[in-house]
């Protein structure tokens, strides 16, 4: 039997499974399905790697582009899809194994998480801009709902704030799409790219700005990221892990994908984005210095890393791009690890304020150790993979003798060390109090998904060449405007 694999699966499978939720509830299979779906998608993505390496896959739906909708699976899309499903698998495994957080093990959460993954995959895969909008909204709605899924005061507040900010961002994006369509009559991104240059400069600017701000809000760039700490603080850490690990990465991809495709000469936009990235990084790291709540601190740290990735991606040399993509992967792994740790700590401690977690290492030694590992990796210290990706980025800058980003990145890392190590020191602070009694149901099995991540961080740190080719191809795919246009529209004479 030959089953015809297509990229649609990445979107359709989670959607289908989500709609069949009542069935899984009846069979008590919610969590296994959630986990195995992600694993299956991950395996599927990996199995496709050899094919995609040779040539990107174009999956046309009904009519060929530019008229119809198509999915475009190239190295970078595959990388991100694999990353998302891996993150999803880890988070769902964690929720499955964990005894706490009953509300995350019920049907609504199940559906929403699958929708989130499906939407993110769709954003990465689609070649149609309105389709993109639809996926953005699917992801948005599921994210808003997930933020509030605990249904207590803080969660609802987070959810409400998220809805307000998110829908305004969506309006900006929609506005830009409408203007694009009105100007060109096209919805296919590749076709738009060809027509974009012919538009009046004013219109280009207006559309560009609308897009930039809409996506920047979603992708958490300064000065449009003020919402982030509140949302990250209010939602469940398991969900936050998905935001930081999956959602932001998808939006970052969209932002840069559109920038590099639509603009034939993206110099201006690149400079803007580099500036935004640099400011985001510095501001976020500075503000994080004074955070007294673990989740807020992690939120700011996440912002800082997003800034770094933006800075590197916007520089758009092959080395920085590949490095930035690697850093995306690492950051997803690390932040999933750290937020899930925060979730575990929340089971034990009522609050994750700096003053309340003194001597945590004595109650939860493994959690503290993994936190240290995550912190070291996020700071870019060897031998963890964060080091390699940062080195890659820095090397990319050094290749062309651009040193201000190097200085900024290193300064930011130093500031980042300032607060991460403050937390580590608090975790390991000597206390007179006896270690707390373990709460019911805390078992080593809970840590299994986290240990997988930890192992991966070390393996990728020691042997980064495992991913090297893939990342370089992904970088070429992201930067290769001509190649993509040719692939979609056929080689123009």
């Amino acid at each position: 039997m030959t089953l015809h694999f297509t990229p649609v699966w990445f979107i359709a499978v989670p959607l289908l499974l989500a709609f069949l939720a009542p069935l899984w509830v009846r069979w008590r299979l919610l969590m296994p399905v959630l986990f195995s779906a992600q694993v299956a998608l991950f395996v599927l993505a990996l199995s496709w790697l050899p094919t995609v390496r040779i040539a990107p896959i174009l999956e046309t739906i009904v009519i060929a582009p530019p008229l119809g909708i198509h999915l475009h699976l190239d190295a970078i899309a595959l990388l991100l899809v694999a990353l998302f499903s891996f993150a999803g698998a880890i988070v769902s495994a964690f929720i499955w194994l964990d005894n706490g957080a009953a509300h995350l093990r019920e049907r609504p959460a199940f559906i929403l998480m699958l929708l989130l993954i499906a939407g993110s995959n769709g954003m990465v895969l689609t070649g149609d801009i309105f389709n993109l909008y639809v996926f953005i909204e699917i992801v948005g709605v599921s994210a808003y709902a997930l933020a509030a899924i605990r249904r207590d005061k803080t969660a609802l507040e987070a959810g409400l704030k998220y809805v307000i900010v998110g829908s305004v961002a969506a309006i900006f994006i929609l506005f830009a799409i409408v203007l694009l369509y009105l100007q060109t009559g096209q919805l296919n991104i590749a076709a738009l790219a060809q027509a974009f240059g012919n538009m009046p400069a004013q219109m280009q600017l207006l559309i560009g700005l609308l897009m930039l701000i809409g996506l920047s809000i979603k992708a958490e760039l300064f000065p449009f990221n003020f919402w982030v700490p509140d949302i990250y603080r209010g939602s469940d850490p398991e969900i936050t892990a998905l935001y930081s690990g999956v959602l932001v990465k998808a939006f970052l991809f969209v932002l840069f994908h559109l920038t590099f495709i639509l603009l034939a000469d993206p110099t201006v936009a690149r400079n803007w984005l580099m500036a935004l990235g640099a400011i985001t990084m510095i501001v976020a790291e500075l503000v994080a210095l004074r955070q007294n709540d673990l989740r807020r601190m992690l939120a700011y740290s996440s912002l800082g890393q997003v800034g770094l990735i933006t800075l590197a991606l916007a520089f758009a040399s092959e080395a920085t791009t590949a490095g930035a993509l690697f850093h995306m992967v690492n950051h997803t792994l690390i932040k999933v690890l750290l937020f899930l740790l925060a979730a575990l700590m929340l089971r034990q401690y009522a609050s994750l304020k700096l003053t309340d977690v003194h001597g945590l290492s004595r109650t939860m030694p493994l959690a503290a150790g993994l936190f240290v590992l995550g912190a070291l990796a996020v700071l870019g210290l060897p031998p963890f993979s964060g080091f390699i990706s940062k080195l890659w980025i820095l090397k990319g800058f050094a290749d062309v003798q651009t040193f201000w980003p190097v200085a900024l990145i290193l300064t930011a890392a130093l500031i980042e060390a300032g607060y991460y190590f403050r937390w580590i020191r608090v975790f390991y602070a000597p206390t007179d109090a006896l270690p707390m009694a373990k709460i019911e149901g805390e078992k080593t099995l809970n840590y299994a998904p986290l240990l997988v991540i930890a192992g991966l961080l070390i393996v990728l740190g020691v042997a980064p060449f495992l991913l090297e080719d893939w990342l370089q191809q992904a970088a070429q795919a992201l930067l290769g405007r001509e190649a993509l246009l040719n692939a979609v529209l056929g080689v123009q004479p």
Partner: protein
Amino acid sequence: MLEVLELFDRPAVLHSIYLIGSLILFFIGLYGLLAKRHLLKIFVSIEIMELAVYLILIAIATTPGETAPILSDGFTAFTSMSDPIPQALTLTAIVIGVAVTALGTSMAIQYHRLTGKVSVGEMTELKD
């Protein structure tokens, strides 16, 4: 008199009117979004802004004299029909918009039930 009316039928004029009208609508929504404190009013404002964007799409994409893009007894060819895509898009977008608004409103109601608050200014639970 008739000329004046015909003037309105010219696409440029008509489009300008629609455009100005929807932009006004958009800014009303924006004002509401930024100035009103009540959660529901904010959602209403968001909805107004969204609608303004749909309106622009529909209005500009349609020219007077075009018919609905439906093939039926009299109409067997795609001539002088309006572009069907914006309408499809708008329909989709409206559905999405409704979903978002519904979600937001339901959350607002639940939040009100839990805390008795209705104003964004009072949402300070997450502040450290």
